[in-house]
Each structure stands twice: as structure tokens, then as C-alpha cells.
């Protein structure tokens, strides 16, 4: 591990909203190809942490490094630093509430990034978008508007939209939390296939069995700190600390 440059590193990361300290001195390394599960109670800072990784939240203190380059909060930054513009081209994010663009068709949602940001031609972008739609099982929905899709379908489109940028890392922020229970499976299946395909991912999740299944490492956060960290086996199946056991017990009914 030591001689591989981590996909993302975090050093001494702190984030406050006013007087509220949400993240307290976080250190973290994400290896290429790793699937990191972030679990913890509400308000423990999981979402804020993942949002700091692509600068949707600007850290109050500390640094984030992408492939060894210091991330700057500016859109453009001088090398060797990396600006948020370039960072976000390489780090995709999928949101709890999908955040699809309602005025654009499914196809346009997926191609907006490649066309506007990467400067791809429409034909090329459309072809790749259709390919991605087929991969998430929605080839027939290319011309539909988001309002006409189910939650599970919306989230699969959102995944395709993120993948269309050919990201090197994917951040998934509670992507199944807003879904009806019967729609969770179809979204998790897509993520599972990404994990098998070697995509580097950070997933904030409440789906413990899913985290145990796909994650290569799990971090348990509590009160803005990393409380425990280890393999899914250690953290999810054989928790040692009282707090972690208490937290997990709520998910086994």
C-alpha cells in the first residue's frame, strides 16, 4: 500500500458549520480500486466527509489530496494543485435525492456533462450514454423525462450520469435512503457490478448487509471522528466496541 499513491487522501480534515464542529481532524487514505463503506449514526459527519472529498463543502481546516495533488477550493488551480473543476470531472457523485435535471430528458441528463464539460461531440456522447443506459437496464427510457421515472430508475440514471464522465472515483451519498424498499435492490445491483468492475468508491450507507458484501473496508464514524476502521468482517460481523455493537443492533431488527 505504501508505494501506491492513494486515489484520495485526507489529512487533518475539519469542518464546522458556525459553532458546530461536524468533522474533527479526519485522516483517511483511499487506495485505487478500494470500496470504502462509511457507516455511523445520523449527524456523525459521514455525508459532510464525502461532500468534502469533491469540495461541495469547503473544509474549514486540513487538506484533501487527489492522486497526491492538493485540492484547491478554486475552480481552476495552478499545478501541482488541482482545482475543483478538474477534481469533479474525475470524481463522480451520486446523491440521496438523485438531483436529476428535470428539464432534460434522461439522455440529455447523461450527456450534459460530457458535452458541456468534456467538450465531446453529441453523437459520441449519445452513443456512450445509450451504452450506459443499457448497462443500468434503462435503454428504453432515453427520451423520457425524470418526472416519469420511479425512484429506482432515477437513481440508476443518476449513476449513468456520473459514469458518463468516466470518473476515477465515485462518491455515493446514501443513494438508497430515499427509495421504496422494493426499489433498493435494483440500485444496489448496479453498484455491486461497479465494485466488481474495480471502480474506486466511497459509499455512505445504512445498508449494512450491502456494505458487508461490497466494501473492502468499513469506517464507523461517530461525532465527527473515525471511531473504528477495519474489514467488513471485523466491523460489521464481529464488532468489539460497545458503541458499534449498539449502533449495529438497530439494523438487525
Amino acid at each position, binding site marked *: 500500500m505504501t508505494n501506491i499513491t492513494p486515489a484520495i487522501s485526507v489529512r487533518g480534515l475539519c469542518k464546522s458549520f458556525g459553532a458546530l464542529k461536524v468533522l474533527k481532524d479526519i485522516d483517511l487514505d483511499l487506495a485505487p480500486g478500494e470500496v470504502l463503506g462509511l457507516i455511523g449514526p445520523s449527524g456523525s459527519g459521514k455525508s459532510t466527509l464525502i461532500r468534502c472529498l469533491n469540495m*461541495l463543502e469547503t473544509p474549514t481546516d486540513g487538506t484533501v489530496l487527489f492522486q497526491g495533488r492538493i485540492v484547491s477550493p478554486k475552480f481552476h488551480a495552478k499545478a501541482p494543485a488541482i482545482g475543483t473543476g478538474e477534481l469533479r470531472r474525475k470524481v*463522480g457523485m451520486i446523491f440521496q435525492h438523485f438531483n436529476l435535471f428535470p428539464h432534460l430528458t434522461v439522455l440529455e441528463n447523461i450527456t*450534459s456533462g460530457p458535452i458541456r464539460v468534456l467538450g465531446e461531440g453529441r453523437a459520441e456522447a449519445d452513443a456512450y450514454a445509450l451504452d450506459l443506459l443499457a448497462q443500468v437496464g434503462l435503454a428504453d427510457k432515453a427520451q423520457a423525462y425524470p418526472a416519469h421515472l420511479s425512484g429506482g430508475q432515477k437513481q440508476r440514471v443518476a449513476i449513468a450520469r456520473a459514469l458518463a464522465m468516466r470518473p476515477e472515483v465515485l462518491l455515493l451519498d446514501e443513494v438508497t435512503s430515499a427509495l421504496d424498499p422494493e426499489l433498493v435492490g435494483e440500485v444496489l445491483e448496479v453498484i455491486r457490478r461497479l465494485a466488481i468492475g474495480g471502480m474506486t468508491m466511497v459509499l455512505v450507507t445504512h445498508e449494512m448487509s450491502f456494505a458487508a458484501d461490497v466494501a473492502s473496508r468499513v469506517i464507523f464514524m461517530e461525532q465527527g471522528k473515525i471511531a473504528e476502521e477495519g474489514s467488513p468482517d471485523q466491523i460489521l460481523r464481529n464488532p468489539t466496541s460497545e458503541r458499534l455493537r449498539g449502533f449495529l443492533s438497530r439494523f438487525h431488527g
Partner: protein
Amino acid sequence: MYNWDFYAIFQSFDLFITGVWVTFLYTAGSIILGILVGLATCFARLSRFWWLRLIARSYQELFRCTPLLVQILWAYYALPMILGITISNTMAGLLTLSLYVGSFYSEIFRGGILAVDKGQREAAAAIGMSGVQSMRYIIMPQAVKNMLPSFINVSIMQLKNTSLLYVISIAELTYMTSVVTSETYRPLEAYSIAAILYFAMLFPLTQLADHFERRMRRSD
């Protein structure tokens, strides 16, 4: 029973035509300028610089909280005295109408932009769009849909507001109607025709607006 007689009125119908044309020009001109002023003011109010917000806010309140008639008279009579310059009635009229409607447009634009879910901006940012790209391709198209009904309402009002230019002798429809009245001594007929002409100008516009609004709802 009043004896309606439109003969004399129709003799001077070209005066009405002039009035309609001038009304149209002032409406179109002040709407275009008003959109520019309104956009600038809207972005100034959304700016992170407090002094820009203050200037924009002061302008909005000044023009929204005083009657248009007073503004027109003030711009034509008082402003030249203060500045020591001459201002034509055309200039005073167009300027006042534009600033007046711009103050209302700016709030409509701002409301339309703020009503777009903040997740939209985040999603645009997350695929690497710059602030300008996100505004242009993601926020604005949705904001326009939000603001369209109010925008059309204020614009319809604006056409009717041009009738106040009558007080500074601009040859728009209401002023021309008064000219026709003084020539024909037929005020009831003249003002009836004026009302019909205003209606004929606005009714197709409201229909067109409905059509556009329906088209924009395609994605719902």
C-alpha cells in the same frame, strides 16, 4: 339614450394607428431595457458583495414604492432642474418605464432562481460544471419556467402603464385618444375604441403566453 356616432372617429382612425404603434414601441423598448436592468439587479442582489446588494436593493425599493405617474413627472420636470440638462419626453418616458418594470422583473428573476432546488446546483457542480455553465444550462432553464407566469403578468401591466405617458405628451394610444376627442367631440366613442384597441393588443399576447407555458410543462 345616448346616440352613438362613430363616423367622425373613423375619419381620424390614422391617429389611433399612430397611438397603437407608439404604445407598442414604448412597451417593447421598456420591456427589453427592463429585462437587462432586471437581470443586472437580480444578479447584484445575489452577489456576495454587500455594497452591490445595497445598491440593487435601494433601486428596487425606490421604484417599487413610488407611483409610476409620479416617477414620470419627476423625471420629466424635476430631474432636468437638478441636473441642469434638458431631457426629452421620449427619454424621460422610456427611461422611467424601463427602470420601473426592471425593478419588478428583478424580483421575479431572483425568486425564479432561488426556487430552483439547491441539489440542482450541486449536481451540476458534481459533474464539473463551472458556476456560469450551471447557471446557463441547469438553473436558468428551470428558473425561466418558474418565473414565466409572473413575468407575463408584469409585462401585460407594462403595456397598460404606457398610457401614463399621456401626461408628458407622448403620442401613445391614450394621448392620441385625447387628441381624437378634442377634434371630434366624441369622447365616449373615442375611449371605447381605445379600450378595444388595448384589448386587441393584449389578448393575443396572453394566448401566446399560455401556449408557451403549456409547452414548457412538457417535462412535468
